[in-house]
């Protein structure tokens, strides 16, 4: 018997901007004249079929507002589906909020019983698990103190301890892991891991793909304007990551186009605080960041090739011209800078108008937000035209390494040490 079965489940929300919220409004509405009934319908879930087998840990991922929480609420019977049928076999515990119904004037002890009964535990079960709850929450000393004097972390700990004290067959978890201090979070994850090993069915909503990967055997991906997709964790998580990047890249392009440079001076670029100076013998008319396929981008994956194409125009003849760029991390760290003079590139016989292109074969920046300065100046460093910064560049990575940049590298394990290598 499957633990959770959803058959053609849809949920429609109706936003009635105009629905009277009180008798007073109702009265005014009845005798008043304007009757424009603002009704807005939207479907959060559409014809969703899902079968969760006992013992499965299913992760729910998707952008905001795609119905992940709605789905959990439907399964927990907090709201009713518009169409379709939901069957749940087994005792269910929904952790949508920790410490639901806590009362600040009551002591920790009293709240344990109150919260437990709200979650549907009997007095006998509560008494049987009481010590375990207190121990897990690490609140022995504060048990008879009113909850008012607890820190928010302590309250959350108590809530989690109560909610997971009893062994439900099915556990629904909605991002509640993102609370408490580091140590307690580890404890929470460990407890969920225990549940998993005990063969409980778990549905987990999280935006943290790492948590999902760590805990879930399968993933359901909900997205607006595309059918829900489920499958093995690694496959779906990767697809989802790809989708998020594409979406972000698309949005950045739109944003960049909306704000982008009036060439030759004036205000520039996506970063709000661009400054721009120079004597004006030469002007930067536009800069494009191009990916491998020569498509303009503002988001790349770490290690991908990137080209910076600088458009210029000569206003008055000059004796020397040096083009340069600099990359800054969002916290202001100067990650890299170079120019044509430092790299020994000749730029003497320039056309009056043209482009200079800088190619990175693989830009190994660590994932993060960066900005790019672009400048053209003379050999002594006096700026003709200097943009600080010119545009933003986001770097995403599927590897969670740290630092500033990623040198090309590889690991070798259990190979004979170099130098002692025997010739074959």
């Amino acid at each position, binding site marked *: 018997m499957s633990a959770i079965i959803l058959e053609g489940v849809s949920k429609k929300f109706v936003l009635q901007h105009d629905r009277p919220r009180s008798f007073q409004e109702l009265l005014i509405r009845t005798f008043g004249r304007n009757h424009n009934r603002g009704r807005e319908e939207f479907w959060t879930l559409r014809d969703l079929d899902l079968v969760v087998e006992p013992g499965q840990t299913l992760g729910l991922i998707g952008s905001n507002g795609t119905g992940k929480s709605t789905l959990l609420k439907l399964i927990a019977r907090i709201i009713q589906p518009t169409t379709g049928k939901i069957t749940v076999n087994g005792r269910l515990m929904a952790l*949508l909020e920790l410490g639901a119904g806590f009362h600040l004037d009551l002591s920790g002890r009293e709240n344990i019983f109150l919260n437990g009964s709200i979650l549907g535990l009997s007095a006998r079960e509560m008494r049987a698990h009481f010590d375990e709850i207190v121990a897990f929450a690490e609140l022995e000393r504060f048990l008879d103190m009113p909850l008012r004097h607890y820190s928010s972390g302590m309250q959350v700990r108590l809530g989690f301890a109560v909610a997971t004290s009893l062994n439900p067959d099915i556990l629904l978890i909605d991002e509640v892991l993102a609370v408490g201090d580091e140590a307690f979070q580890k404890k929470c994850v460990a407890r969920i891991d225990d549940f998993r090993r005990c063969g409980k069915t778990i549905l987990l909503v999280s935006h943290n793909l790492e948590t999902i990967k760590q805990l879930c055997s399968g993933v359901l991906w909900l997205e607006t304007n595309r059918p829900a997709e489920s499958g093995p964790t690694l496959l779906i998580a990767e697809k989802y990551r790809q989708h998020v990047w594409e979406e972000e890249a698309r949005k950045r392009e739109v944003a960049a186009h909306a704000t982008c440079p009036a060439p030759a001076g004036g205000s520039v670029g996506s970063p709000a605080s661009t400054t721009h100076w120079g004597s004006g013998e030469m002007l930067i008319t536009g800069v494009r960041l191009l990916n491998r396929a020569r498509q303009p981008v503002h988001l790349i994956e770490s290690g991908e090739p990137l080209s910076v194409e600088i458009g210029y125009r000569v206003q008055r003849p000059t004796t020397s011209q040096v083009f340069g760029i600099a990359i800054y991390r969002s916290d202001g760290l100067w990650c890299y800078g170079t120019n044509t003079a430092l790299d020994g590139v000749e730029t003497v016989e320039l056309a009056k108008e043209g482009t200079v292109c800088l190619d990175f074969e693989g830009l190994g920046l660590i994932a993060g937000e960066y900005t790019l300065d672009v400048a053209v100046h003379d050999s002594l460093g006096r700026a003709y035209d200097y943009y600080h910064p010119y545009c933003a560049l986001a770097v995403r990575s599927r590897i969670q390494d740290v630092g500033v940049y990623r040198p090309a590298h590889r690991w070798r394990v259990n190979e004979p040490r170099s130098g002692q290598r025997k010739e074959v």
Partner: protein
Amino acid sequence: MIAKLVELIRYRELVRNLVLRDLKARYKNSVLGFLWSLLNPLLTMVVFTVVFTFMMPNTEIQKFPVFLLCALLPWNFFQAALTGCVNSIVDHASLIKKVYFPREALPISGVLSNFVNFLLALVVLFAMLFAFRIPLTRQALWLPVIMAIQVIFTLGLGLILATINVFYRDTSVILGVVLQAWFFLTPIIYPIERLPTESHVLGLTLNVHRLSYILNPMASIVSSYRVVLYNGAPPALDFMLRTLVTALAMLFLGYLFFSHYSATFGEEV
């Protein structure tokens, strides 16, 4: 519906804990907690006694303070229970949005915690009976039956009001006004016998005394308390029975109404 009732029984611990929470929260913050809750009816009693024995002397009613208190305490229970019920769903919005449990637990606990208060307040009533040397007769044994009828009626009405308040938030405000009118329409500060059996309104002859009994279940309930405690007389059984039927019908309707809409509470509150 049977399944729902069974589930409610499974959650009886919740009702119990909610009642305990209400009571503890009410009495915890003030040392005088319990006494404080008795002060209100006592003060009301004093005020009405001053008005009706000194300012508008009424020799007809003996031992006015007891006469009044017999009806005032049940009415206060009724009023507090309804006021508690009407907001019970809306006040627990965050809970309803996040946890599933039988929603009826909230209005039920609202009525029951006020019922416990009422029982505690009865101590004062019995003290007054003793002080005014009104003997308790065997008729006082009817008290639990009358209380049961009142709880049933109040809960039925409370379920309906709690539901309406989810959709129209000023229900609680309107209730306040209605309760005030209802207080004066119910024989609390006057004996029901005072109501005329023949009254001419707009050319119609009305038996106000009888109408009051028929149209206002609280009139029957409040008078019954007074009959068995103050008068020490047996209650009129046919009236009691009719009131019981009314109360049960009210609870049935209220429960149907509430369960019909409670599925949408998760989105509406």
